[in-house]
């Protein structure tokens, strides 16, 4: 399956184990790696990502394409597409990874036609991932829109590595239909605070925010976070915020963290041509000795210290 001998990243073939639609625009794809791919991806950190070649996947039948994507569906796919992971599990020499994706354009449209047993070419795991929570007592996960997958992955890791840590997750979106979680609103367990199944399965409390108030807190996920921080006592020195989502939201989270002197790591998104640090397309402006410099999202990131990024 692999091209070279033992390594921590590379190009591997993965086999599709499932691909299911969880919301009108959201799908969850399961990939299975064996051999060296299983080894390499077994070591994936939350926030790391993979580059998938979707150019050879079938275009869905016209009537299965949302009307606003009919024109986009006609575009060819040349470049790979970056996706982070919602879950990573190794067992019996195989590594299973879950990708949670939103159907936005030609590549993610093609992605929906993948079926059990189909083979996908995957490069990864790439990027740095979130830094370990060593020494922290509390972790706050903030997921805006499609920022959800690495936060789910983080929930998995924190539970496994730091079982005594106090973890809470915030998930937000424009509206209830845009929440990239399988949990239906009627399944939300308001009483216990375990709103989202994706976090509840790790015993992690979660809060939901929608801009239009169609589920959970009415407002942005950052408003929700600020509200919660205002109502709860948090020891800034022993707390870390992990955030992933649209840039504006990350900027707001960074601001909140700064005000309260809480460590904060954000995962950035950029259009990427290569994903491996050779094309210079994915620059993130970072502070550097009073000046700024460009770092590469794919290689130096996608996770950055919130203090470092020029939003």
């Amino acid at each position, binding site marked *: 399956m692999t091209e070279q001998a033992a390594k921590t990243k590379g*190009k591997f073939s993965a086999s599709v184990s499932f691909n299911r639609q969880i919301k009108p625009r959201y799908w969850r794809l399961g990939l299975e790696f064996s051999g060296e791919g299983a080894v390499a991806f077994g070591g994936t950190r939350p926030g790391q990502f993979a580059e998938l070649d979707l150019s050879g996947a079938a275009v869905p039948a016209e009537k299965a394409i949302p009307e606003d994507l009919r024109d986009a569906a006609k*575009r060819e796919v*040349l470049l790979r597409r970056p996706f982070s992971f919602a879950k990573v599990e190794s067992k019996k020499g195989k590594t299973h990874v879950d990708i949670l994706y939103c159907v936005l354009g030609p590549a993610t449209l093609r992605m929906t036609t993948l079926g059990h047993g189909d083979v996908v070419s995957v490069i990864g795991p790439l990027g740095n991932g979130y830094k370990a929570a060593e020494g922290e007592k509390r972790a706050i996960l903030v997921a805006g829109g499609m920022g959800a997958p690495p936060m789910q992955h983080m929930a998995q890791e924190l539970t496994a590595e730091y079982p005594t840590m106090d973890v809470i997750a915030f998930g937000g979106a424009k509206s209830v239909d845009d929440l990239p979680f399988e949990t239906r609103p009627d399944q939300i367990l308001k009483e216990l605070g375990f709103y989202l199944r994706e976090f509840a399965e790790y015993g992690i409390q979660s809060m939901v925010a929608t801009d239009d108030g169609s589920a959970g807190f009415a407002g942005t996920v950052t408003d929700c976070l600020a509200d919660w921080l205002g109502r709860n006592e948090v020891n800034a020195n022993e707390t870390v915020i992990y955030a992933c989502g649209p840039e504006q939201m990350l900027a707001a989270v960074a601001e909140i963290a700064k005000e309260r002197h809480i460590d904060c790591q954000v995962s950035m998104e*950029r*259009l990427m041509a290569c994903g*491996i640090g050779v*094309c210079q*397309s994915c*620059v993130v402006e970072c502070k550097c000795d009073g000046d700024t410099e460009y770092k590469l999202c794919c290689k130096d990131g996608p996770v950055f210290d919130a203090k470092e990024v020029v939003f």
Partner: protein
Amino acid sequence: MNEMVDMMVEFGGMGLANPVFTASGTCGYADELAEFMDVNALGGFVTKSVTLKPRKGNLRPRIVETNAGMLNAIGLANVGLEKFIEEKLPVLRGRSAAVFVNVAGERIEEYVAVVERLANEEPIAGFELNISCPNVKRGGITFGTDAGQVKEITSAVKKASGGKCLMVKLTPNVTDISVTAKAAVEGGADALSLVNTFTAMVIDIESRKCVLANRTGGLSGPAIRPIAVYMVNKVYTEVAKDAGVPILGGGGIRTASDAIEFMIAGASAVSVGTASFIEPGCAVKIIEGIKKYCERHDISKVSELVGTLK
């Protein structure tokens, strides 16, 4: 692999282990690709453009995908000459592929200064002049579209290059590429490299803005291959063949078949750019594929393919 096919090619006064290069700006400084292929198996390696001073490059977005291609407007982001010598050259030193430093600038003196400084550095085999940059002195028109300027810059740099191979990289954004190719040869070019990218634009119809911060970018990838093949063949038959100047041909090469097409058209060697983003190991696969083709066609020396279009 069958050792009977001689993969060596003569190129601008040197012998290359095989005719496959990675293209400037698409393969970093080689170490990034080590995970995906044996970088030492390459015939040649061209660095990202190096300029006299460091350049941060353009604002983002810097790339956008198009049908069978992509635009880039990286803006020659690079660490600059001094840091290149300090940090990047040592990394390249361990490589067996012939290293070409791609040089860019906005004034002739900048090109000359960079080449002069590198003329005696190891392991540099030669230079690739990127003359598709806007000439600030002449109102931003690119050097590469004007034959007079092409000749002038080539001969100025030639004098500074200390006998190292000087390859001039031609822009395809011209009426007749043979005219600029001829000017480069007259200026003393030891090799020609073509094609660079085509100026192009993508508009986001929702915001009615250009997708790239730089508004325009350079189109590369499979989309441009048939134009590039035509231009290589034109330059080969009209200029390079008689002048005895080898061509490094490229533009959209993704497979061995593509590479062979360029060689038949007249390229002595080929460069792989955008395709490396999709298959980081593809340059080495292409070498193997060319070898197999030669075996199948009973071609004992790969160089026999060059310019054999009937």
